[in-house]
């Protein structure tokens, strides 16, 4: 079996397994979504109406296996049913509304973090042992071990509430109509500044450290010394000889975090009231919106798998050794 076929098999099975876990999770846990829906509202909804509603949401008593197949079918037809929280909107509608924001927010910040972190890492390794290195590397580490939550709260407080420099909420100024106008786009950028900054900030450290360590490894390699011996400029040796090779392991981390992008910004979205998937998921969890949670986990898993696929291809692209056996 060739590598590609094996990988594809892996992705398929992984997807199925994830989908199955997804299916079982809510069913194994206590709590009925319809009850939750009205529990906090203090609403006096009678059992009849609840039952009628339950049927609308597809909560019909059926044998588990039958339900499983219906579920599988829905997964493969991209029909996750109706959201409970956002009824009567379909899960897909709800998710698609939030998806672009999360992609934008988390995607931008991951890419930013990766670029900045890697560049700093390359430089720290190049100047290893120097003042720059011995300040930046432990700091990177420190930043990496601070929860995004704390940084989020602090930035929100400092820049949003005390200095009042940046908006503390929304993806854009609500009074502006979305469209391809400068006003709208700049507002989107302005509102994304703080969440993106925070998200990028917390993950720079990881990339920096990985890159630095890989790079230090590479710098000891003979082809790098040969690059120097050939009289190439430092820049060329640094990037084309050392960093290019050191990048490979970092790429894995990068692609994997691209994969977890859809869930990774959850905390930040909540803190900054950003209308992304994470926020939706959290609300969904609180409201026991099973269809929504399931749809979302599936999409996240899929993103993760796609990212893995991406890693495979990036590797093949960046490392000629893998192109042919």
């Amino acid at each position: 079996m060739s590598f590609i076929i094996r990988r594809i098999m892996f992705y398929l099975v992984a997807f199925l397994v994830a989908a199955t876990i997804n299916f079982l999770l809510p069913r194994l846990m206590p709590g009925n979504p319809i009850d939750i829906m009205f529990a906090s509202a203090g609403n006096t909804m009678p059992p009849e109406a609840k039952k009628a509603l339950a049927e609308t949401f597809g909560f019909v008593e059926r044998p588990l296996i039958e339900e499983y197949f219906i579920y599988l079918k829905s997964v493969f037809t991209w029909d996750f049913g109706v959201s409970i929280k956002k009824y009567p909107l379909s899960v897909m509608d709800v998710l698609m509304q939030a998806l672009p924001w999360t992609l934008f927010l988390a995607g931008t910040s991951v890419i930013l973090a990766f670029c900045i972190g890697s560049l700093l890492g390359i430089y720290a390794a190049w100047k290893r042992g120097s003042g720059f290195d011995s300040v930046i590397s432990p700091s990177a580490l420190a930043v990496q071990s601070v929860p995004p939550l704390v940084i989020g709260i602090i930035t929100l407080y400092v820049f949003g509430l005390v200095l009042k420099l940046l908006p503390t909420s929304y993806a854009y100024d609500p009074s502006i109509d979305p469209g391809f106008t400068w006003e709208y786009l700049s507002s989107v950028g302005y509102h994304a500044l703080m969440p993106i900054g925070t998200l990028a900030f917390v993950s720079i450290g990881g990339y920096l450290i990985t890159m630095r360590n890989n790079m230090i490894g590479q710098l000891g390699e003979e082809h790098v010394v040969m690059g120097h011996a050939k009289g190439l400029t430092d820049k060329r040796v640094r990037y084309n000889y050392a960093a290019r090779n050191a990048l490979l392991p970092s790429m894995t981390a990068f692609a994997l975090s691209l994969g977890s992008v859809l869930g990774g910004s959850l905390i930040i979205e909540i803190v900054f009231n950003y209308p992304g998937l994470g926020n939706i998921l959290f609300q969904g969890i609180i409201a026991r919106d099973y269809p929504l949670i399931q749809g979302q986990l599936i999409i996240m898993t899929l993103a993760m798998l796609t990212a893995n696929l991406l890693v495979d291809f990036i590797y093949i692209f960046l490392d000629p050794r893998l192109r042919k056996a």
Partner: protein
Amino acid sequence: MIKFFSIVMRNKKATAGMLIVLAYIALALAAPLITSHDPAKRVARPHQAPSVEHVMGSTRMGRDVYTQFVWGTRTSLMVGFSAGLIVTVIGTLIGVTAGYFGGVIDETLNFITNIALVIPQLPLLLVLAAFIGKSDPFMIAVIIGLTSWAWGARVTRSQTLTLRRREFVEASEQIGEPSRRIICIELIPNLLSIIGFNFIGSVVYTIITQATLEFLGLGDPLAVSWGNMLYNAQTSSAITVGAWWEMFAPCFAIVTIGIGLSLLNFGVDEISNPRLRTLGAINKAVKAQKKFDQTYKSAKGAAS
């Protein structure tokens, strides 16, 4: 143990990290001795600023922040270390087994690991924590432990694979050592730094994640923990009403323990990874070379 400390002391970062971690461990152990209040009881007026009586002030509910901070250390360390232990044990077991036996066992375990890696972690944790309901700190530790081993397993596996190709493993097989012994006696000691790395990393991750879950209100609100301190500070809008100390204490705690553990890890990595080990020497050598170049040039300049 003594050896470990002496290794750690060789590296400034590791030493700093070690000191922080030890300080927290001491705090956790001495909690009953160094606090005089009940962390879960009202002992002051709401939102009292730090004073002699309440060195870190009081919470909105009138609890002593300092006492909560100290007792929270217990919870956080307990959660962190137990989850770290679970993660490390599972990860090491799976990683070593897969790496050592290879073949179908490896394919199977590796497959499971890869699946565990692609299932989004934080969301899964959130869902589990929410669904399990009353998620006291220990429960959270178990959930995190059971869902976060994959990364460690993968790293351990790849390291085992490298080790497995080392001839001393083959030599042990040759003399007829049983697999169990090869794994425990020959392989594991060589994996200690990776295992340690995995353990400390998991502890940091767990402490952060637990705090996050609790902050989101998915923990047990009765537990005295840093995450709940954050949560309570958040629900009482402590910062907005000017009671910064209620928010500051847990933030400070989480950040410093995180930094402490990471520094320790970083330092241990520098020590155990030969490529990183010599960084101090490198810096000195660079300086020495610069000095030589200068004297050389000035000597030549003077000569010509």
